[in-house]
């Protein structure tokens, strides 16, 4: 009986000692905070190309719920169309298609005039259009979207390829991972695309403005609001000029008041896109 009592007492002491020891090794709040802040600092300093892996992994793992919740969000925003009236989105899509066809026709006319009798390939005839679903849509702050096509899909996706949304160019592929790809919209601050401004037929570089618009600077002539802006041909990436946006505003340049700065807005509602098409010229 007495031995049992001593055994219980010894066990109790042992447990108490263990608790005391664990209390002594317990990390204080200050140390914990500094450790976590250091981890945050390392992630902060790490290059974007490394840390993008975290984001790509998240997009890969949760691509289905992300797509589903985005689709639910879009369906709640969609308005019911009146009978015999097409929706604004459909109207814009068809308008963009018409603009592209007209531009192709214009190009063809020019070629026919210059090279009458010579055969040429119809623009985009040899191109492959890879349709992809939008996993993460663009928002006011971000100027990129993520699509569900990547290296593993054997679609020949590569950096720099143009991406179509509702028949208009919306941006270029900026990064391709195993199962997803990032599309940098032409409105992104880092985006620079050679464009042709419709009726003036002027070639310029368009730079993204970051808030659903882009800017073409230093133009000699004033341009009308609503004029179409076309992405220029680019060997191996785009065979024919295609509509990229419309002129939303034209202001005098602050440094050179004789010149004009043009604000360009996308030709489609990029936020509402469910799917896009990547243009692959000369697919293997």
């Amino acid at each position, binding site marked *: 009986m007495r031995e049992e009592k001593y055994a219980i007492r010894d066990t109790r002491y042992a447990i108490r000692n263990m608790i005391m020891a664990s209390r002594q090794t317990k990390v204080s709040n200050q140390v*914990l905070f500094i450790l976590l802040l250091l981890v945050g600092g390392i*992630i902060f300093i790490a290059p974007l190309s490394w840390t993008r892996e975290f984001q790509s992994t998240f997009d890969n793992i949760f691509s289905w719920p992300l797509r589903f919740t985005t689709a639910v969000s879009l369906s709640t925003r969609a308005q019911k169309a009146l009978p015999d009236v097409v929706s604004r989105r459909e109207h814009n899509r068809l308008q963009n298609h018409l603009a592209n066809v007209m531009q192709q026709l214009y190009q063809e006319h020019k070629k026919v005039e210059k090279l009458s009798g010579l055969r040429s390939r119809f623009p985009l005839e040899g191109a492959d259009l890879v349709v992809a679903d939008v996993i993460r849509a663009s928002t006011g702050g971000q100027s990129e979207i993520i699509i569900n096509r990547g290296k593993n899909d054997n679609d020949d996706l590569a950096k720099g390829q143009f991406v179509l949304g509702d028949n208009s160019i919306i941006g270029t592929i900026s990064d391709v991972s195993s199962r997803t790809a990032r599309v940098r919209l032409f409105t992104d601050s880092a985006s620079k695309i050679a464009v042709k401004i419709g009726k003036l037929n002027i070639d310029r570089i368009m730079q993204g403005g970051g808030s659903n618009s882009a800017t073409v600077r230093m133009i000699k002539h004033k341009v009308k609001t609503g004029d179409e802006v076309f992405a220029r041909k680019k060997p191996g990436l785009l065979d024919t000029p295609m509509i990229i946006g419309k002129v939303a505003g034209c202001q005098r340049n602050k440094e050179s008041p004789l010149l004009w700065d043009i604000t360009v807005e996308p030709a489609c509602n990029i936020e509402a896109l469910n799917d896009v098409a990547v243009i692959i010229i000369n697919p293997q």
Partner: protein
Amino acid sequence: MRWFRFAVLIIVASVLQAGFLELLNFKPDLLLILLVFFAIYCKTSDAIIASFTIGFAADIIGSAMGPQIISFGLFGTALAYLHRVIAIKKIPYQSLVIFITATLTAVFAHLLTFLKLTFLEGRPTPPMIFAVLLVTSLCSALAGPFFFLPTGWWMRIKTNRLRIH
């Protein structure tokens, strides 16, 4: 602290924020609401870990990695320590705290994003739209206290009792 439940909650909030809420014009910041919740209702050490973890999740669904983890971690920890001195129990006070925290974290995160992209990556930073920031902070402040009850139920934390650690 039930960490498995916490992980599930953060994943669900991140997916909803990046998918469903991303396209809405008026939206609350779910991760920020959770940051305030854990800073108010958890003991300080748990609140510090939760703040940095939520910041990491916010970075994953954001544009660049790093700014949010530091911003959320700093302000979450500060709020947890503040809560030891001032009890934030009533809904209007909770709303006010969410609004202030949302504004401060967003401004600080944008500053860090600017530093990271401009000086470390050498690329331009997207402009900060103050109207969007204010609307998001306001929506979070209005909706936040109503998320506390289901969050408390899921995390098995009693939200009607003041806990001092």
